[in-house]
């Protein structure tokens, strides 16, 4: 089928208002929030903005018929290039499917469409006394569909768990266009846990068209504490001490000097500019316990050389501190035109040593690195700053980030805490997974999407496409049996 015929068919499905196909208007779909340096410029052939699950399903069927790749996209706030059309194809933008369909307080769930904005879901639930717990820093803009795709985390995931812990069920359009429901409102469902498989699959296995989310009760009391430290190391020790003392904060975040500067320039949120590092600790729960724990955390911070400990007095003050923290990535534009996010997680006890290594590498490669991260669960976010117009800098960035990742994996950490693998980090997968591990993943992918049309070139590293996996398996088998593979 030629381009014009496909266009006609798409128009029949989504109408003229739902289709974009002028190459010039498709320019704006060649990026997401990751840096363009790494993915390059790839435009989809078509962008559709469906309003119903039926339309999504019909578009997927058509794509299957004509053999075009399908790429789902939400708000495009992803940091790993997951929403980019690397092989062209049809980009399915789900932002118009943004209704909250049902809120069932008694059974503790809500059913929403994937385009609902994360923060707006929590805002809508608030008058009923509930919220949606996963709160990625981009929550003002990112969509629930994107959260499901990336199994997103956020500051409050330290206590409440990541997205997968809050998804009860999904309506999914599979790569053949069929629509199925997985999971349900009851705590346990028999059979294969397809919800678990789909959450975090980054749109490589299907497109979510409805999400059944778990409702979490708003805590009775909240307190936010800000502690200023002379350096990252002392703040890291304080972090370990807080967790070791048996206090489980709702969130425990760290920001270094460079990040504080960018954030303060942006919003005057009230972070001390002179600090080498700050910890932002949120405690929630029953009033008495929150009060007691706030005192304990303050004391522990002081013991680990915090020179200022401040508790936010009003909701406005708390919100402003959080606004600062959650805008940190975006504020990097104040420090440099480009940045590369490393999203690695290490065991908490390895935090101080890892931060020392990051600092060493920053000096070694002559690159500024800003640090803002979920200290509580050891999820680091070194942001390597650069200017792509300076010759040689991009290469240095890639070498430096590889070094950071290698170190983190060596101390028992992993590649990504919450932002996904997408395109950008897929070739690092071999650092953490064995060939067998990756083959198992590729096998799952193949059973869902044998034609490799769903979000191609993502998650699995080069060489692990469905077709290639069979060869790899045989190679591995041959090696184990001591045979020569031809």
């Amino acid at each position: 089928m030629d381009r014009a015929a496909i266009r006609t068919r798409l128009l029949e499905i989504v109408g003229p208002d739902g289709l974009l196909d002028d190459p010039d208007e498709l320019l704006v779909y060649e990026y997401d929030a990751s840096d363009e340096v790494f993915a390059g410029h790839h435009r989809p052939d078509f962008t559709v903005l469906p309003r119903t699950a039926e339309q999504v399903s019909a578009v997927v069927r058509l794509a299957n018929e004509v053999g075009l790749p399908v790429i789902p996209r939400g708000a495009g706030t992803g940091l790993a290039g997951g929403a980019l059309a690397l092989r062209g194809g049809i980009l399915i933008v789900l932002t118009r499917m943004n209704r909250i369909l049902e809120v069932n307080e008694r059974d503790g769930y809500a059913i929403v469409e994937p385009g609902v904005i994360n923060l707006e879901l929590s805002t809508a639930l608030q008058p009923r006394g509930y919220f949606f717990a996963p709160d990625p820093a981009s929550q003002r803009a990112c969509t629930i569909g994107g959260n499901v795709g990336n199994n997103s985390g956020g500051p409050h995931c330290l206590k409440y768990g990541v997205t997968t812990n809050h998804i009860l069920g999904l309506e999914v359009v599979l790569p053949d266009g069929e629509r199925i429901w997985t999971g349900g409102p009851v705590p346990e469902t028999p059979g294969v846990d397809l919800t678990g498989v789909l959450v975090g699959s980054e749109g490589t296995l299907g497109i979510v068209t409805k999400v059944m989310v778990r409702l979490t009760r708003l805590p009775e009391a909240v307190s936010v504490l800000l502690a200023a430290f002379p350096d990252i190391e002392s703040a890291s020790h304080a972090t370990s001490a807080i967790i070791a003392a048996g206090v489980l904060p709702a969130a425990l975040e760290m920001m270094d000097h460079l990040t504080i500067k960018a954030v303060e320039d942006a919003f005057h949120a009230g972070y001390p500019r002179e600090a080498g590092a700050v910890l932002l600790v949120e405690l929630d729960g029953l009033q008495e316990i929150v009060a007691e724990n706030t005192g304990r955390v303050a004391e522990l911070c002081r013991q680990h050389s915090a020179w200022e400990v401040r508790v936010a007095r009003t909701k406005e003050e708390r919100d402003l501190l959080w606004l600062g923290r959650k805008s940190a990535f975006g504020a990097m534009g104040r420090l440099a035109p480009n940045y590369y996010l490393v999203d690695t997680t290490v065991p908490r006890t390895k935090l101080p040593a890892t931060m020392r290594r990051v600092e060493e590498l920053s000096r070694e490669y002559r690159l500024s690195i800003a640090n803002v991260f979920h200290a509580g669960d050891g999820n680091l976010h070194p942001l390597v700053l650069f200017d792509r117009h300076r010759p040689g800098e991009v290469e240095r960035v890639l070498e430096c980030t590889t070094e950071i990742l290698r170190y983190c994996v060596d101390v028992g950490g992993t590649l990504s805490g919450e932002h996904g693998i997408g395109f950008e980090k897929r070739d690092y997968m071999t650092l953490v997974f064995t060939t067998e591990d990756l083959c198992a993943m590729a096998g799952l992918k193949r059973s869902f999407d044998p034609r490799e049309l769903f979000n191609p070139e993502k998650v699995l590293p080069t060489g692990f496409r469905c077709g290639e996996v069979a060869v790899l398996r045989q190679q591995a088998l041959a090696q184990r049996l001591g045979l020569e593979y031809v």
Partner: protein
Amino acid sequence: MVTVPESTRVRGFSGRDAPSFDLIRKCVHCGFCLPSCPTYRITWRERSSPRGRIWLMKSVAEGRLDLLDPVFAEEMQLCLNCRACEAVCPSGVHYGQILEASRAQLVQHRPQSLRERLYRVLGFRILLGDMRRFRAANKLLRWYQRSPVRMLVRRSGVLRALGLEHAEAMLPTIPERFVVPDGRFFPAENERRGRVALFTGCVMSTAYAHVHEATIRVLTRNGFDVVLVSGQQCCGALHVHSGEPELGRDLARRNIEALESPYLDAIIVNAAGCGAMLKEYPQLLNHDHSYAERARALAAKVRDVLEFLVERGLTAQPGALPWTVTYQEPCHLAHAQRITQQPRVLLRAIPQLRLVEMAESALCCGSAGIYNLLQPDMASALLERKLDNALATGAEVIVSANPGCMLQLEAGLRARGLRVPVLHLIEVLDRAYTAATVPAARALPVAAE
């Protein structure tokens, strides 16, 4: 796809009013601006979002997209320049500046139809180019509105032929008395705390002359001498927003000459759009050696009246108004000047007044200067959304602080057949002061005709 013919292609930006590439490059496309953007929230298309528009600008700057490409031109026009994105941008991209510069590039390079050229000359040079002419035209308009000619014109179909039907319906009723900057002086009542100039502007001095009168009363009651400094012109915001920065600079220079005086403590503005423009004169004139420093000195003294009253504190106690009101934030107050708390502080200072916040109070109402005339579909989609949000509060009065928003809301309410009054916040405060001594002033106001 519409392709631009080879002969008319324009590669990249050029000249003094080119969008700053350094500002464009500051965007790290994080996407935080998306939900704040009115046109994105209506279309959900990336091209109609701030991030999308910045990417289009970047593509033009890098030579990947033609300046005259229809997608670029359409999006630069579809943007409201409400600057909600600027207020939430963590990277500090001054979006208004690069948008206005992009529009200037289009005006300079895009062939204009005869009609567009005519309207530009008539509107920007003749009417808004000199306030004496503007006020004379308003007198004529008043005569037109009160004479049978209006009926004849409306019936004749000539408005439709000229594409002015919508504009004519939007016109506010022009009152008999204008507030003209003629050097008049209004002395402070009570203890004197300073001397300020009132920036009179264009439509505020005619259709909204009563708001100026209310502003003068509130200021004098709170201890400020008010001067109507002569020689003031239009602020130039409409020119700058429409890609005519040179005309804006001319007006800015004339306003600086009129208003720079060591004997004034502040320049008070009660139109959010004008206030934002006056505060941005330094940026507008930064290449002009003889005016740059003077622009900075003037801008440092410019205050929105609501900002000023909260900064200096009310010395007179307002009387009670038993009204339920909701507040519609003007974009150029909330986003361009970041004034969001002060209006609420003042409303809460009025005893018995109940402020019910509307949903999306900071989302543009679609007025945006002359946008509602140029992009009627988007403007009316936003207006309907705004009215739904405002009316859902059950408010008896809708309060705002900018003439464009007030005109837009009034027209929308009229079209719905509703008689909900729209008041400038300073009018509400003025009524509260009157109510302290005259109980009849506590009655609900009536909607404008």
